[in-house]
């Protein structure tokens, strides 16, 4: 291996690592607030990437029907809830807004000249389509079991992942997709040219990581979200709504996931089922961060990306094995160092 190859591999590793870092962060975010290990995080990535690809191809993506369907179920559950609690004539305030949003999305997707839109607008539309799925999924699948044992939450999370992969196949078909890069320019840096997309990925990741850090460490609402993670009942007594906290974090996680998808879609071909392995690598990062520390998780994910890139060079067939075996010593180290009371209720 010479210096140039090392630099290329390094660039690859850092790009993937940055994406894994973003995923690790949103996994961490969801876990600290709701105690849910968000396995479907990878599906948000593929949904984002494949929706973007569909828009660029000028197809009115079928995802919008999923959005409409989930909105309808969500709203009818709201209405049923209102009926049960005896406020039949007081329409829950958000129902018309949510319905209107979904209908507007349908109209936009059906009528806009999608392929001709500037790329920034396509990205925006993709986010507008995918992000609402997050809170809706929380509302429908996780909220009814929010207080359950973390292992039940994990199983629901896996089940949601399995269902979302199937839905992904239905919406986007079995073909892989790749989108146009944001710009063609590259940055000359000595002997190698840094891919502009790499720079985009790194810049956006850094920005998100810093803003997340500031949000949780400095802002009152961020602290309130963390309080919910420590003690649901306590947070509730202090006037923090765990439901709102859950929806908010799911929205953030979906946003980060879909954005990651848009960012890497020009670099890698993604299929409807590519999300799982991507999010698992995010998990490896999150676990290295001990499911608590944001900076360590980001560094861990970066390391995963680099290790992956370099093992591709030395032992390409063993790439996945190396990455996933890597996690076990960390798991061990984590559970040996964390004082943990075995007795669970």
């Amino acid at each position: 291996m010479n210096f140039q190859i090392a630099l290329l591999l390094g660039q690859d590793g850092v790009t993937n690592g940055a994406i894994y870092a973003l995923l690790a962060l949103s996994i961490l975010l969801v876990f600290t607030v709701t105690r849910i290990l968000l396995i479907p995080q990878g599906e948000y990535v593929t949904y984002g990437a494949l929706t973007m690809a569909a828009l660029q191809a000028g197809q009115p993506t079928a995802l919008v029907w999923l959005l409409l369907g989930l909105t309808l179920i969500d709203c009818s559950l709201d209405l049923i809830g209102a009926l049960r609690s005896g406020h039949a004539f007081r329409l829950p305030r958000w129902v018309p807004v949510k319905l209107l949003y979904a209908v507007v999305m349908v109209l936009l997707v059906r009528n806009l000249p999608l392929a001709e839109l500037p790329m920034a607008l396509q990205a925006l539309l993709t986010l507008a389509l995918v992000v609402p799925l997050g809170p809706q999924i929380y509302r429908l699948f996780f909220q009814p079991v929010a207080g359950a044992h973390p292992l039940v939450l994990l199983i629901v999370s896996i089940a949601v992942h399995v269902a979302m992969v199937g839905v992904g196949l239905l919406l986007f078909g079995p073909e892989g997709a790749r989108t146009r890069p944001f710009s063609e320019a590259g940055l000359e840096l000595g002997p190698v040219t840094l891919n502009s997309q790499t720079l985009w990925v790194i810049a956006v990741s850094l920005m998100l990581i810093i803003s997340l850090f500031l949000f949780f460490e400095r802002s009152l609402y961020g602290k309130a979200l963390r309080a919910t993670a420590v003690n649901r009942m306590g947070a509730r007594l202090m006037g923090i709504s765990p439901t709102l906290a859950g929806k908010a974090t799911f929205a953030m996680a979906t946003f980060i996931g879909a954005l990651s998808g848009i960012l890497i879609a020009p670099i890698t071909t993604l299929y409807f089922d590519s999300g799982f392995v991507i999010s698992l690598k995010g998990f490896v990062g999150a676990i290295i961060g001990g499911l608590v520390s944001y900076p360590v998780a980001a560094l861990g994910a970066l390391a995963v990306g680099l290790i992956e890139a370099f093992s591709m060079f030395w032992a390409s067939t063993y790439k996945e094995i190396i990455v996933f075996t890597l996690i076990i010593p960390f798991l061990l180290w984590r559970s040996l160092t964390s004082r943990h009371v075995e007795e669970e209720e």
Partner: protein
Amino acid sequence: MNLRALLFVFVLLLGIAPLALPTFQITLLNYIGLYTLVVLGLVLLTGVGGMTSFGQAAFVGLGAYTSAYLTATEQLPAWLAWAGGSPWLALLLGITLTATVALLLGALTLKLSGHYLPLGTIAWGISLYYLFGTLDGLGGHTGMSGLPPISLFGMLLDKGWKMFYLIWVILLLAMLLVQNLLNSREGRAIRALKGGQVMAESMGVNTFRAKLVIFVISALLAALSGWLYAHNQRFVNPTPFGLHMGIEYLFMALIGGVGSVWGALLGAGILTLLKQWLQDWLPLLLGSQGNYETIVFGLLIVLLMQRAPGGLWPLLLRLTPARWRQGKGAPRADEQPPELPRRQLPASGELILQAREVTKRFGGLVANDRMNLSIHAGEILALIGPNGAGKSTLFNQISGVDLPTEGDVLFLGQRINGIASRRIARLGMSRTFQHVKLLPTMSVLENVAIGAHLRGNKGIVPALLHSERGEEAELLREARRQLERVGLGDYLYEEAGSLALGQQRILEIARALCADPCLLLLDEPAAGLRHKEKQALAELLRKLRGEGMAILLVEHDMDFVMGLVDRVVVMEFGQKIAEGLPDEVQKNPAVLEAYLGAAE
């Protein structure tokens, strides 16, 4: 008509199924049998032991690939040439290999707590899957073909209906063995893993060993299924051993009911048939080809977790008439076996336990400050003090649940701080808990029998074969004797969780007595008891003292304490403020001040 008859009908139907059903249905039944074998392991691991594993499919692959490699490779390496060609030899080697791998993975990952364990299983599940696809000699992603059929007593099992008998006989045997295991001394230890690990350890159970045992058993069941699968299919490739299949196995267990052996069969059956049906209909409905059944499965599991987390088997069981279920499952203690040998109690007055300058700090807080304490055989010592005085902390250090920051605890002359609570239990110390720790769905009798864990020594294999029935009867008889002694003789077969709180405390005393201790530690035994019950308890404790037992009591009920105990130690703010006879202590000004406040 009862459940036993139902079972008989079921087996009979299975027996004639190949004669009556077309080949396709037999193939389906074969798959159900193969899946159930894996799910059975998950029931043991997840449902009973409380450890979620997504990696079972990898063990199936280990069994399948070992056999495929040994029986279908043209030219085995010289050192393995002796093992080639025979499926049965390959089974033996596959089982050995799987047990080794499971022991290694278990030793690495079973110490993981909470979320880390399932994530760990995902990690090695994926690693093994990729390994099957990349190792030289395993045929890559296209797989290996040309596996020979299994031959049994000279008969070649080369048809689906012949394999059907082998699969289902093995499965029914495995179900019987697992059922046997759960209903035994080792089985009680395993069942205590879910929600009772601290308790089980202090009754002498090695919980890590129990975890490892069920982990290896579930891996072996999976490998066995893989071996059958490989020779049923006569072809293997990595696909059926991936993580998606590991998830599907877990789904089967959850749908059927992860807590019961029959739930495994139900879950595997439902999911297999449903998958078949959905694969026929969904593409027609949705207009394109694809594995759309996963959508339904995912939603089904979510719904199940929201509405019936126990799975379908318990729901189904509730539909049967109540009298069918009576007396089913729960072991009874009606025989009159010889009594268990008892420990030689130390002579009355001998020093049993001594705490020397025990100090415990939690960060800056000093919960125990140079506490000294001694207990003698045939003596009841009460440890009293206001709330937060540090009594329970001291109690935990004496019983090995917690470690003193400084100072020593000596039990029968031996330094015991720092050694595991199950070792301390073996030395002859037994305890109850301030917050009752019992297994609410197990019968009262079985809960108490956990206390006698160290008085039996028959291991896993006799438990699987139920060749330890003699010892088991003795243990259960002992549990019954102790229950009758504490006055719970009428509740032997009730669910422990249905007892009143006071009775649950008494149950804990019976459980502690079952261990045949020479020192009994009781944490607030009289809390929640009625007047009569308190009198009976005091009577029991006096009798035990008369037999030479040493008893340490933490208690708030002064009437109960003062009329019963020999000496009292009073604590406040982590320190001993008084020690002596009950009458003296009651007049001690420091004690009065601690309890009533200082006179102005």
